[in-house]
């Protein structure tokens, strides 16, 4: 049977998944093997070295770099408070006295007699890593962190902004093709993951931020709104560190696109339950998509499957078209002709035939579809 490899986004009622929760530099692991952890538990933490500031003592005291040794009040390794004197001259007349204060609190890192520069380092900052998902520690990486395993509903979006958060799932629209309007966001949505349908406008997102909503999940947003929200154009899709007071997860793409019915129904089946959400997206090397993880089973599911993406597509598979002129349309693969076909742009491409809802059959390049993985 003909089949073709086409990666897709995962929308799974229940799967077993693991998350590595590692520090960027060595630190202390705070959770033990086999320990049950909650999403907000800290599993590892480290001290990030503080910022470094430089002070050119030689210039400030109007002496040569090699001469500053005689004027240093503090030496390498000494602790200093902000405003404390680190060097001063000792003139015959007090009137000519000149001193150099520390611009920050920290320690004296180096004193250079070549440049006359003193480097001061701020105290280290604590960097904690949370478990992110509720589950069990199945691996401990000494000095770096743990791997947490959980069973739950797993939904990938196509694009997101904002970091990791969590909250109760709150369905705010009646169907996947309804817009999520500002008035759909209520005061009791504070701290929740609000699920919309087709589209969230800038006004909706701003209202959600005002009311303290933790995340919005919606089919599409306009790029122009995103630009206004962030104040800049996203050039390459590496996101997750935006600090706008909310996490946004887009399931389908940019524009007005109803959320896939299956995704909406699945989220609706978990309404009121606590989910972990991340907006982090990275399209290059080591692809990362935004995600929603809801621990536990939906009511109608009795068995949790291992995450085993099939990796190819066959006739009968449901797919989503991801490029104009049929962007966002969902259909069923009818056939996969093996030969190259001339498409509308005159390119020669591998194609597939797709049966749409009304029975119409259209031809689409294989590159322009993604399989709806369930």
């Amino acid at each position, binding site marked *: 049977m003909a089949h073709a490899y086409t990666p897709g986004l995962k929308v799974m009622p229940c799967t077993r998944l693991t998350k590595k929760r590692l520090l960027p*530099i060595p630190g202390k692991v705070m959770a033990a093997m086999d320990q049950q952890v909650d999403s907000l538990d800290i599993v590892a933490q480290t001290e990030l*070295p503080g*910022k*470094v*500031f*430089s002070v050119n003592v030689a210039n400030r005291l109007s002496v040569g*770099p090699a001469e500053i040794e005689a004027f240093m009040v503090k030496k390498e390794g000494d602790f200093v408070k902000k405003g404390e004197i680190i060097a001063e001259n000792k003139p015959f007349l007090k009137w000519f006295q000149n001193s150099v204060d520390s611009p920050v609190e920290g320690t004296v*890192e*180096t004193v*250079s007699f*070549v*440049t006359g*520069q003193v*480097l001061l*380092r701020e105290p280290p900052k604590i960097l904690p890593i949370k478990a992110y998902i509720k589950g069990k520690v199945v691996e401990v990486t000494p000095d770096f962190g743990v791997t947490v395993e959980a069973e739950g509903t797993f939904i990938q979006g*196509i*694009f997101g902004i904002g970091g990791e958060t969590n909250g109760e799932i709150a369905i705010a629209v009646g169907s996947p093709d309804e817009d999520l309007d500002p008035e759909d966001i209520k005061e009791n949505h504070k701290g929740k993951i609000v699920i919309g349908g087709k589209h969230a406008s800038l006004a909706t997102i701003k209202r959600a931020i005002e009311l303290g909503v933790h995340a919005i999940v919606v089919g599409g947003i*306009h*790029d*122009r709104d*995103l*630009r206004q929200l962030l104040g*800049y*154009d*996203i*050039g*390459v*899709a590496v996101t997750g560190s935006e600090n706008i007071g909310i996490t946004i997860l887009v399931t389908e*793409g*940019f*524009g007005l696109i109803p959320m896939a019915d299956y995704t909406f129904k699945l989220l609706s089946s978990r309404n009121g339950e606590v989910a972990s959400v991340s907006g982090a*997206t990275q*399209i*290059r*090397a*080591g692809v990362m998509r935004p995600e929603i993880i809801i621990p536990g089973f939906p009511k109608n599911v009795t068995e949790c499957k291992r995450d085993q993406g099939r990796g190819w597509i066959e006739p009968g598979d449901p797919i989503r078209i*991801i*490029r*104009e*002129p049929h*962007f966002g349309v969902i259909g069923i693969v009818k056939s996969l002709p093996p030969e190259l076909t001339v*498409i*509308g*742009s*005159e*390119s020669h*491409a591998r194609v597939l035939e797709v049966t749409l809802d009304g029975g119409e059959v259209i031809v*689409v*390049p294989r*590159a*322009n579809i*993604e399989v709806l993985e369930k």
Partner: protein
Amino acid sequence: MSKKDLEIIIATDCGSTTTKAILIEKKGDTYRQTFRGEAPTTVEAPFEDVTKGVLNSITEVEELSGRKILDGEKIITPNSGNTGADIYVSTSSAGGGLQMMVAGAVKAMTGESAQRCALGAGAIVMDVLASNDGRADHEKIERIRQLRPDMMLLSGGTDGGTITHVVELAQFLKAADPKPRLGAAYKLPVIYAGNNKAHAQIKEILGDRTALIITENLRPTLERENLMPARHKIHDIFLEHVMQQAPGYPRLMKMVGAPIMPTPAAVGTMTEKFAKANNFNVLAVDIGGATTDVFSVFSGVFNRTVSANLGMSYSISNVMAEAGLANILRWLPFDVEEQDLRNRLKNKMIRPTTIPQTVDDLQIEHAVAREALRLAFEQHKSLAVGLKGVQQERSISDAFEQTSSGASLINVMKLDYVIGSGGILAHSPRRTQSMMMMIDAYQPEGITRMAVDSIFMMPHLGVLAQISEKAALDVFYNDCLVRLGTCLAPKGMAKDGQLILEWDAVGSDGKRQTGELRFGDILHVPMNSPKARLVAKPAKGFDMGAGPGNRVDAEIEGGVVGLVLDGRGRPFALSKEPGKRLDNLNKWYKAMGMYPV
């Protein structure tokens, strides 16, 4: 094995998504590329071994050619009958290529020299630090901490000069304590190529914290750049440190018969060989999904730049951000809503492997490509310059010609050859589309030959050129280049419809074609003959390379497109009046037969 014994060569290029293998065979006295295969690159999980993709691509070559090249996971050498190859060579840009940070005392002098040095070695330069780069000291240290380069190149000061600035940079580097991108347990390799008087201090500051390598100063005097010693060190470290940490590369290094080169370094080598062999000024471009590399050889001086975030898929949205929507919209012969265009480009960014299905969608991608090519060329022109800070003696006559040091080496009137590669140029449905995208982006003046590297073979040939220049050049001329033709673009401005050029071309097949070019028009003249003699007589005020109004006799090339006579004038600017702009675009695209009607 001596070079003359090379008969069968297998070469691969391990790209970030695809590994491409080609087979080269000696037929009589000439080397020809005969078969090719490709397979997904396997650097990332779940495989994490680059050799799997290499072996898969070579297996495809085996299947197509009927030649047995592999014995299990080994390449059979030498060739015997229908078995084996005499040598296997490879390039690599997988896993993000070679990523470097460079530092110099003064941004426009040693900073720029260090940047040229790293770029020429095939690196992506993540940042250029300099004492006078406008950032506060703590910002510089933060920046060093944030980035995780594969290695760092530290330069600064001329030999024997002041050491203060370069010592200061070394202290910042030590305070930041940067970690290499691959292999967290390893020390970051730092190449020091600055003032030789500072060696002792640099060793004292960085000797313990980093894997320090000291080499000759890349700017020993203000008047001289000496990039090769530092460039060789970059290549050594690329092989010894970076490649050793990348998944599967230690095994790949044992398979090859010549050192693995970073892909851009190999393309640069091939560009230089081609320019030198023909005494041409050459511009070569590789426009990919994420980055655009530009290479040039002008008056024998090689330069390379990489625009890390200008590309046609992953970086397509950044092209919009940098060029501005208006600059993309200006190339479209139809109206499109700004919101629609924004959403389309973002959707391509998040689903980078999709392809245009309709002509409108194709034209939008072509509009973006023009801007990506143009911006990358602008960046190239600003770095491919003479040395800045050089003392110049001026006479009274020079006072009227205010040339400064650091002028760009790129002169589009003196440009002989443009080579385009990358999906959008190599695989456009019509070759006229590729040629017009390059003409619009580069606006060549006078006489410029153009070609595309249809299957991006230049990396393979660049690494092969280290072993056999003849084999590399044979394949380059016969199989790699798809000759598009020649662009004739008189420099000057006039009123629409005014006669600006009379021309006469006689092909090597004896076929003669003549005509006139009027201002505001584009003429497309099919001409397949590989060589032709051209006589061009520009009107008064128009220049074809011999000065305004002067006749030019030149050798040109025909190709799959032929001659393109571009009468839009130079400097070329699209009409600001929307109706006229649309009319002109439709007229030009129709004249070139660019899109289905």
